[in-house]
C-alpha cells in the first residue's frame, strides 16, 4: 500500500503525461468532426469535475448545475452583444455572479437533506430556465446569436479552426483537475469528505459543516460558469433550451457518476467514455429520427450504473474509491 502523498504525486505525474498527449493529439487528428467531439469531451470532463467538487466530495447532490452553466453563458453573451465587453471579462463576471448566486441559494438550501435538497436544486434551476425563457432582454426563447467579429484570442472567437477552442478546453480541464487535486489535500477537502460521510459526526468534531458546503458550492459554481462562457463562444448561439434545462444538469453529473463520484479521475474517465459515445450514436444512428440512439444510450447508462455503483474508476484501482486517506 502506498501512502496518500505518494498517490498524489503519481496522480500529478499521470495528469501531466495525459495532458501532454492530449496537447499533441490535434497534430494527428485533422478531422473537424472528431475535433469537435474532443472539445466537448474536455469541456464535459471539466464541468463534471466542477460538479464533483460539490456533489462528489462534499456529498451535496446537485441536479441544478445547468443554472450556473447558463448564468456563465448568458453573462458572457449579454455583456459581449450589448456592451461589447470582451468574453474574457464576461467569463470572469459570469463566474463571480454564479458564485454569489450559489452562496445566496446555499444559505437556505443547505439546511435540506436527501431528496429535499436534490429537488430544491432541480426546482431552482428550472425557475432560472423559465425566467430566461421569458426574459425579452436576453432574447427570451429565441436566445442570443453571438455576432462574429473576426478570429482572435482577444475576442475569443475562431471561425476557421477548432484548435484554439480545443486548447482552451484542455487548459480549462487541467485547471479544474488541478483545483480538485489541490483541494483534495487541503483542509477543505478533508472537511468535505467528513461532511459527506457523516454530517453530524463532522459537526461534533468541529467541522463547520455549513461553511464548508458554502465553499464547495462557490468553487463548483464558478468553474461551471466558466464552462458556460466557453460554450457560448464555442457554439456562438445560446438559448435557454440549450444551456439551462434539467437534462443538461444530468449531463454534467453523468461523467462523474459513471467514472466514479468523489474521485480525481472519475469525471475525466467518465467524459472520455460517455461524450464520444453520445455524439457518435447521435450522429450515426440518431439520424434516422427513430430514437435508436436514445435506446442504446439509455441502456448503457442503466447497465453501467447497476454494474459499477462505485464508477468505472474502480476497475483501475484495488482500493475502494474515496478511502485512500491516511489516519
Amino acid at each position, binding site marked *: 500500500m502506498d501512502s496518500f502523498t505518494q498517490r498524489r504525486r503519481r496522480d500529478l505525474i499521470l495528469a501531466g503525461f495525459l495532458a501532454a498527449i492530449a496537447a499533441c493529439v490535434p497534430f494527428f487528428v485533422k478531422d473537424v468532426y472528431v475535433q469537435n467531439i474532443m472539445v466537448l469531451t474536455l469541456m464535459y470532463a471539466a464541468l463534471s469535475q466542477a460538479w464533483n467538487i460539490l456533489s462528489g466530495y462534499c456529498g451535496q447532490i446537485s441536479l441544478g448545475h445547468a443554472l450556473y452553466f447558463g448564468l456563465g453563458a448568458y453573462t458572457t453573451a449579454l455583456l459581449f452583444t450589448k456592451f461589447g465587453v470582451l468574453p474574457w471579462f464576461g467569463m470572469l463576471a459570469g463566474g463571480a455572479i454564479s458564485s454569489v448566486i450559489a452562496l445566496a441559494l446555499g444559505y437556505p438550501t443547505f*439546511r*435540506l437533506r436527501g431528496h*429535499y435538497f436534490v429537488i430544491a436544486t432541480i*426546482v431552482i434551476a428550472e425557475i432560472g430556465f423559465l425566467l430566461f425563457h421569458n426574459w425579452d432582454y436576453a432574447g427570451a426563447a429565441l436566445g442570443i446569436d453571438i455576432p462574429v467579429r473576426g478570429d482572435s484570442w482577444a475576442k475569443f472567437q475562431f471561425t476557421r479552426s477548432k484548435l484554439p477552442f480545443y486548447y482552451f478546453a484542455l487548459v480549462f480541464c487541467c485547471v479544474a483537475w488541478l483545483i480538485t487535486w489541490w483541494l483534495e489535500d487541503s483542509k477543505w477537502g478533508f472537511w468535505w469528505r467528513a461532511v459527506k460521510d457523516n454530517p453530524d459526526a463532522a459537526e461534533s468534531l468541529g467541522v463547520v459543516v455549513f461553511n464548508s458546503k458554502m465553499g464547495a458550492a462557490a468553487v463548483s459554481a464558478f468553474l461551471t460558469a466558466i464552462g458556460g462562457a466557453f460554450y457560448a463562444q464555442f457554439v456562438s448561439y445560446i438559448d435557454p433550451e440549450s444551456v439551462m434545462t434539467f437534462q443538461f444538469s444530468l449531463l454534467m453529473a453523468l461523467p462523474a457518476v459513471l467514472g466514479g463520484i468523489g474521485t480525481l479521475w472519475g469525471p475525466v474517465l467518465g467524459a472520455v467514455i460517455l461524450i464520444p459515445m453520445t455524439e457518435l450514436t447521435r450522429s450515426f444512428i440518431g439520424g434516422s429520427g*427513430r*430514437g435508436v440512439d436514445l435506446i442504446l*444510450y*439509455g441502456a448503457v447508462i442503466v447497465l453501467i450504473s447497476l454494474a459499477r*455503483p462505485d464508477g468505472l474508476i474502480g476497475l483501475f484501482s484495488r482500493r475502494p*474509491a474515496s478511502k485512500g486517506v491516511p489516519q
Partner: protein
Amino acid sequence: MGLLYGLLAVGLALIFGLMDVTNFAHGEFLMLAMYLTFFLFMFWAVDPLLSIPIVAAGMFVFGAVIYLIIIRFAMRAKANIGMVQIFATFGLAILMRGLAQFFFTPDYRSIPASMLGGKTISVFGVFLPVPQLVGALISIAAFGALYFFMKKTDFGRALEATREDAGAVALVGIDKNKVFALGWGLGSALIGLAGGVMAIFFYIYPDVGASFALIAYVTVALGGFGSVFGAFAGGIIVGLVEATTAMILPPSLKSVGIYAVYLLVVFIRPRGLFGSI
C-alpha cells in the same frame, strides 16, 4: 380545474414517496400508460374510460417487472445508493423514450372521441368539463383505496416496515423483494389510472412524460416523503397554486408558482408538510 391536475399528480407520485426510491422514469411510465390507452382505443375501440382498469393492470405488471430487473439491483448498491438510483432510472427514462420513438414514432396523437369527450355539466352555475370531473373522482377513489390499503392491510404495513428497516423485516420473515415488487406494481398501476384519464385530454407523444415528471416529484416532496396523506394534500396544493399562478403570470411561467411554493415550504419545514423522513 387545476385541482384535478393536482389529484392526477398524486396518483403518479404516491408510491415513489412511500418507498423512498428516486424514480426519474415515472414520467415515462405515464407516457406508456397513455399510449396503452391510445392503442386500446385505436385497435379495439375500447373507450378510454373502460380501458382504465386494463391499463392499470398492465402497468402493475410492468412496474413489478421493472423492479425485479432493474431497481432491485440499484437498491443493492453499497456505495452512492442515491446516485445509482437516480441514474439507473434516468437511463431507463431515456431508454423508454427512445423505444417509444422507435415503435410509436414521434408524432403527436390524441384520442378523437370518447363517451365523455367535450361534454360539460353545470354544477352550481360553474361549467365543468366531464372528463376532468371523472378524472377527479377516479383520483379521489384511488387515493381512498390506497390509504385504506396502506393502513389496514398486512401488505400496506409490510411495505411501510420494509421501507423503514429492510434488515429487521427480513428477520420476521418478510421477503423484501416481494414487498417492493408489489409496491412498484401498485405505484405503476396508479400511474396507469392517471395515464388512462390524462390520455383523454392531453396529446400523446414520446416526451409527454417529461412535462409532468418534475411536477409530480415536487408534489410528493411538498407533501413530505413517506406520507400518503401528504402526497394527496401536496397534489391539491400544486393544482391550486398552478391555477392561481396561471391567472397572474403569463402561461409559460405557471410552473414557477409551484416551484416557489415548494421552496418556501421546505425552507420553513425541511421535511415537507406531512413528511416523516
